[in-house]
């Protein structure tokens, strides 16, 4: 009874709050946080010790998320990211730790306690940031990639932090096992350091080896059983067992899961794993955010309001300034700089773990830890607001401000193609075969490299960046092909090119009819719905498989195509940016008409005077 009741409350709160926050354009993270606040401190349904249990359970969501991240990262990609990881991530953690430690020392704390606080608050929230970046589709931008590098470095940095924490305990040390934060019970305690390191390395090696040589054959067997839930269970088992193993030897469970993910990223089951585990991640992360919301102690918050808010705002400001400076040093474009700076400015969920551990080991006083944890929660609560700030005020303005010099593009193209995914690639090949000078831009370094290997002039870069378009030769290009995957970016790009390069013809790939109208408004000259012709071709194949003669199938598809293209221009005037009543009525009417069009058969044989299959010969005056 109790379980169902709890589950009911959690789920109801999540469903209501997330739906509302999504409607308001605030994203799911804020929705979950508010759901937690609502059922915890506000309504008092859950709270206290319970939230702690839920939080531990929900930390599993973070673990799964890192597994999924690992799954998407092939080893050679990490290798390629190594400079960004070490440079950007290392500098961020080091500089922020120094700055915050100095600040805390300035208030009068001992350097040991200050260092604990400084390095803990240097970490950002992987859960919030990655979830938000994914939701908004910013993961592949330069800012998103940089944020990811930093988060990854932070996740790794947790390990040495955990290692030095006990050394910084200057107060009366509380035995680890007895402490509240003692969830971190490594079996290696008491052994010498070199032995611990050895065991950890051996564990990591074991995970890699198992991933390579054990998991794949096992999955082959499980997949052969053709039971989906078994596969899902096996996938979860991998995550849980690596997490458990890493936990046992005292390393971050999340990092273990991440490692397992990387090992399996090259396996043929990668996509199946991803799609099976993804729903768990979403729900558990939601639970995590709910528990953060529910755990907010409003009593303490109000009694120490200014202190807590002050710490939170201070932390955000310090982190943001350092992040912005780093983005400048690494020459990030203006828009990415702000995404990076605002996005990573909060403190992260590892703070709950580290502070708990710190108070248990006596590195920090318990009362201080409570205030710090509340401050961390406040920074997390403020993060969605910062993202909204970025989205509303920074992102739309990027068009007019080119921040950095353009990338080297040796020769401008007659045809500039933005986006070299499934669509742009084909166009690029066609243009090359026709001997046109082309420049291809994409923000996926992998794709660009692959295209380069096949001899296409492709350049890495964000095609939504004005200076890059300039360098690509859009001033002289005859045609600009907009073939980005992301609908919103695509529209913004077309609008920008239409405004700034009026002489260039714009050919655009539309996602669907509605997107087509948007692109039209944005100023594209020729637009095709990306799946339209492909779908017609498949429809034609279907008709043929049904036994229709190839030419008849062709005729049917032509009639359909013509009618549909007409429909596009008829519905245009009813399209108001959304589907109004009139629009829906018009769609219905067109559909009825389509049935008639398709039923009429203009090639039935009546149209040739000398047809040999005419059923009505008397029509022909010659006979």
């Amino acid at each position, binding site marked *: 009874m109790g379980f169902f009741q709890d589950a009911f409350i959690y789920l109801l709160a999540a469903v209501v709050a997330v739906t509302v926050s999504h409607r308001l354009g605030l994203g799911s993270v804020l929705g979950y946080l508010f759901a937690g606040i609502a059922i915890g401190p506000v309504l008092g349904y859950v709270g206290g010790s319970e939230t702690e249990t839920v939080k531990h359970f929900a930390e599993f969501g973070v673990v799964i998320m890192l597994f999924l991240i690992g799954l998407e990262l092939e080893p050679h990609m990490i290798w390629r990211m190594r400079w960004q990881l070490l440079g950007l991530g290392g500098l961020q953690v080091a500089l922020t730790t120094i700055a915050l430690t100095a600040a805390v020392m300035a208030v009068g704390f001992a350097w040991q306690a200050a260092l604990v606080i400084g390095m803990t608050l240097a970490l950002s929230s992987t859960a919030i940031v990655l979830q938000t970046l994914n939701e908004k589709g910013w993961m592949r931008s330069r800012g998103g990639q940089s944020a990811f590098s930093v988060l990854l470095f932070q996740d790794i940095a947790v390990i040495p932090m955990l290692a030095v924490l006990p050394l910084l305990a200057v107060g009366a040390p509380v035995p680890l096992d007895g402490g509240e934060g003692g969830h971190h019970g490594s079996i290696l305690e008491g052994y010498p350091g070199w032995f611990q390191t050895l065991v950890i390395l051996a564990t990591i090696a074991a995970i890699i080896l198992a991933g390579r040589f054990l998991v794949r054959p096992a999955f082959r067997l499980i997949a052969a059983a053709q039971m989906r839930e078994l596969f899902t269970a096996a996938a979860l088992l991998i995550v849980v067992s690596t997490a458990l193993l890493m936990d046992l030897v005292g390393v971050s469970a999340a990092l273990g899961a991440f490692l397992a993910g990387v090992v399996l990223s090259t396996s043929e089951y990668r996509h199946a794993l991803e799609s099976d585990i993804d729903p768990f991640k979403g729900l558990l992360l939601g639970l995590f955010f709910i528990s953060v919301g529910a755990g907010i102690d409003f009593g303490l918050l109000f009694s120490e309001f200014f202190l807590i808010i002050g710490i939170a705002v201070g932390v955000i400001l310090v982190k943001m300034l350092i992040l912005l400076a780093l983005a400048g040093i690494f020459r990030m474009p203006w828009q990415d700089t702000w995404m990076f700076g605002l996005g990573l400015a909060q403190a992260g969920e590892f703070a709950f773990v580290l502070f708990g551990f710190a108070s248990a080991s006596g590195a920090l006083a318990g009362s201080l830890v409570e205030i710090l944890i509340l401050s961390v929660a406040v920074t997390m609560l403020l993060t969605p607001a910062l993202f909204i700030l970025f989205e509303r005020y920074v992102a739309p303005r990027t068009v007019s401000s080119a921040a950095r010099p353009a990338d080297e593009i040796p020769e401008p193209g007659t045809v500039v193609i933005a986006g070299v995914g499934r669509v742009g690639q084909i166009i690029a090949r066609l243009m090359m075969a026709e001997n046109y000078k082309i420049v291809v831009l994409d923000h996926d370094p992998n794709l660009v490299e692959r295209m380069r290997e096949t001899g296409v002039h492709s350049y890495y870069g964000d095609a939504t960046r004005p200076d890059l378009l300039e360098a690509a030769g859009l001033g002289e290009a005859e045609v600009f092909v907009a073939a980005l995957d992301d609908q919103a970016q695509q529209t913004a790009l077309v609008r920008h090119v239409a405004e700034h390069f009026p002489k260039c013809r714009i050919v655009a790939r539309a996602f669907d009819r509605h997107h087509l109208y948007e692109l039209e408004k944005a100023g594209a000259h020729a637009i095709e719905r990306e799946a339209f012709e492909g779908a017609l071709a498949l429809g034609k194949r279907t008709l043929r498989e049904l036994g229709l003669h190839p030419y008849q199938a062709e005729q049917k598809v032509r009639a359909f*195509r*013509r009618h549909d293209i007409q429909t596009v221009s008829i519905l245009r005037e009813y399209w108001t940016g959304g589907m109004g009543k009139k629009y829906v009525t018009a769609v219905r009417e067109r559909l009825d008409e389509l049935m008639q069009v398709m039923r009429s058969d*203009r090639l039935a044989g*009546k*149209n*040739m*005077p000398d047809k040999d299959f005419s059923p009505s010969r008397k029509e022909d005056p010659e006979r």
Partner: protein
Amino acid sequence: MARVLVLFAHPRTDRSVANTALIAAARTMPGVELVDLYGEYPDFDIDIDREQQRLVDIDCLVMQHPVYWYSSPALLKEWQDLVLEHGFAYGADGPALQGKSLLQVATCGTDRDAYRKKGKYENDLRTLFSPFEQTAKFCGMRYLAPFGIFSAEDAEKDGRLDKIVTDYSRLLGAIRDGSLDLEKAASAPLLNDVLDDAIDEEAAAG
């Protein structure tokens, strides 16, 4: 004023100096509508309703095309197959073309001598084009003698092109203004021969 529709069918206009010059002239003539069939239907997907509407609105249809295998390029044949429907172009309730005229303007690769009884092709242009003539008659149209542009590829080099373009413009203008003697134009074996005779310049001037 008669309305004239020129259906131009050439898959490679860029390679045809003569046709390029001819359509350039036709395009600028008031009262004459020029349709580039290969331009409008590159995928051969002819919009039947639209083409039929065009025919309803005019008095004279001009088919301008190169001679391909003693006939027209494929798209013009496809156009006939689809647009000249039963119930529209012929049949009990389809006299839409009744009384209108059809004229073929054809560019030929070889000289005129090839198109003689004793020439290389053993037939004159009009005989070779008899399927078009028969089609026109079947639809109740008057078939005018074809206007041939022989050795079209050399026309510019030989200095004949300007005259050809002028003649073509005169011809279209005369049809439009009603100053072409349709009977004379219909009965000649080749329109080239009777052009000056059939156009009543005074009527045109007046």
